[in-house]
């Protein structure tokens, strides 16, 4: 791997990070309403707490000074205090992030498997019924709001048939005899949200898999393989599929960065105790420090995932030029 390529991509990620931090800073300082300052000036706030907020955010100082203070506190891992919970934001997000990762991994697995299988089938039967069906399905899935899909699944499977719990990650107030019983309960709660979120994102994977495989299938080496007498099925699966997976790998890496933000709708519908639901609850409570922190963490994940995707792509596809 070329070190210059790596450094260049690292530099790009760094610039993006600065942009994100700056946008995040201005979003919560100079926007109309100036939320954090508004809270600091709020009448029913104890003078000591207001003093503390002023000290923390430096509202009485100039903007550049506030910006410098903000960067300094970020570097030291200080994301501020939650208005609602009166706890450090970083701890609150830390408590929630595992639930989101668990849900997102399950949902991504569902979506990726579905995308690869259906996308491959569609490309292999280009222009025929399977292809048209798969394309139509992918577009249809794209048009469905993710939260609505969740609602419909809950109303059918949980309410009508009663096979799955309506919401949450575990049964409320239940004591578990063994760890295994606990795990089983979590899995039981996990299944429906995973399918719901997985279905909501599988359309994109299907489309990319299909078009990527169609591209590869027009290449000369595929014609050669066919001319040599390999079966069509073998050519698609053994010769074309590995190369067609390249764009998929990049898209998967990028999507993993977006998964925390993407889980928001599903988490809201299922009351899944993750970061997405935290964002929703914090908006209702106007808990701006938590929102700001969550937004920053979500953006970090996307930047890191993009960086990994770039590196992975450069590594997997030697045709990419390392300028």
């Amino acid at each position: 791997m070329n070190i210059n390529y790596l450094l260049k991509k690292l530099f790009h990620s760094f610039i993006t990070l600065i942009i994100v931090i700056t946008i995040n800073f201005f979003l919560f300082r100079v926007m109309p309403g100036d939320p954090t300052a508004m809270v600091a000036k709020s009448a029913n706030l104890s003078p000591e707490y207001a003093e503390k907020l002023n000290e923390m955010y430096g509202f009485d100082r100039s903007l550049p000074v506030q910006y410098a203070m903000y960067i300094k506190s970020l570097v030291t891992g200080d994301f501020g205090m939650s208005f609602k919970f009166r706890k450090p934001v970083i701890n609150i997000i830390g408590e929630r992030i595992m639930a989101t990762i668990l849900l997102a991994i399950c949902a991504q697995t569902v979506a990726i498997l579905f995308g690869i299988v259906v996308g491959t089938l569609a490309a292999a039967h280009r222009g025929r019924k399977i292809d048209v069906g798969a394309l139509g399905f992918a577009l249809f899935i794209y048009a469905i709001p993710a939260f609505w899909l969740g609602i419909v699944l809950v109303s059918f499977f949980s309410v009508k048939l009663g096979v799955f719990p309506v919401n949450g990650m575990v049964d409320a107030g239940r004591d578990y005899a063994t760890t295994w019983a606990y795990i089983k309960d979590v899995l039981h709660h996990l299944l429906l949200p995973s399918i719901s979120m997985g279905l909501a994102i599988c359309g994109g994977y299907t489309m990319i898999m299909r078009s990527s495989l169609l591209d590869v299938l027009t290449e000369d080496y595929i014609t050669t393989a066919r001319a040599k007498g390999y079966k069509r099925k073998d050519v698609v699966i053994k010769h074309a599929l590995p190369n067609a997976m390249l764009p998929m790998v990049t898209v998967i890496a990028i999507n993993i960065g977006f998964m925390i933000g993407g889980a928001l709708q599903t988490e809201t519908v299922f009351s899944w105790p993750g970061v997405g639901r935290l964002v929703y609850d914090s908006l209702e409570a106007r808990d701006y420090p938590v929102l700001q922190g969550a937004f920053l963490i979500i953006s970090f994940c996307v930047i890191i995932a993009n960086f990994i995707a770039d590196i992975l792509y450069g590594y997997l596809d030697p045709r990419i030029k390392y300028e």
Partner: protein
Amino acid sequence: MAEITKKNVKYQNIKRSIDTFMGNKMGVLGLCILVFFVIVAFIGPLVYDFDQQSYGKGELMAPPTNGFPLGTDDMGRDILGSLIYGAKISLMIGIFATLISVCIGTFIGISSGFAGGKTDIILMRFTDGFMVLPKLPLIMILAALLGSNIRNIIIVLGFTSWTGTARLVRSQTLSVKERQFVERAISSGAGKGYIMFKHILPNVFPLVFSNTILVTANAILTETTLSFLGLGDPLTPSWGQILRGAFVSGAVSLGAWWFFIPAGLCVILLVLGFTFLGYSFDEILNPKLRRR
């Protein structure tokens, strides 16, 4: 023999375009769906009796009956009436948000591609940085900070969805810029602004067009989600607002399907209409795709 006049050629071009479009089943289906919703949005309110719309006219969350073809919501309002009213809101938000988004995207894209050099690098870095921001959380925070009303939602949606258009316009500008007629215009002393808007814009626009329609689909979807999450305009009964009402009032646990199924289907159908149209335009305007 018909005389080959400028007007004649133009007419034939238009006729050929229409023929190509009519041959595209997906596009025709999309257009039909859109026409249906436009009729519902603008003729519906004239024909449909909105008296049922007021609070407490019907029973609370009652299933479909004679007076209420699609039942009532948790405040006893007629759901069909709300759906008809919501069509206009969704169309309006989608179209106006797209206008803002396309203007910003086209402006940044053309400036970036035409100026080149440092301007290009800075604008594209900025675009990339913006692209990376998690859309939904950003839109939610912006809507919450600005305050939820229709105008603000349109502005927020417009200002957060221009990145794709900007990249597309830039790459197209780069290729148009190299063509001879631009060179000729430069050598005959045309100003930069003149070339950008009189020569490059018309050549870039057809490719942007299909993208534009997809932006509209996305804006409608995002507005629904925003309203559902409680960040919509509480005074406007949009489809997302109906779905929020259903979610918050527990219609899901009560099995009141008429409260959330029709509204969801309307969103899906309208978004599909725009998506179909967008894809078919893409096929027609970008012939490279046609070979697939």
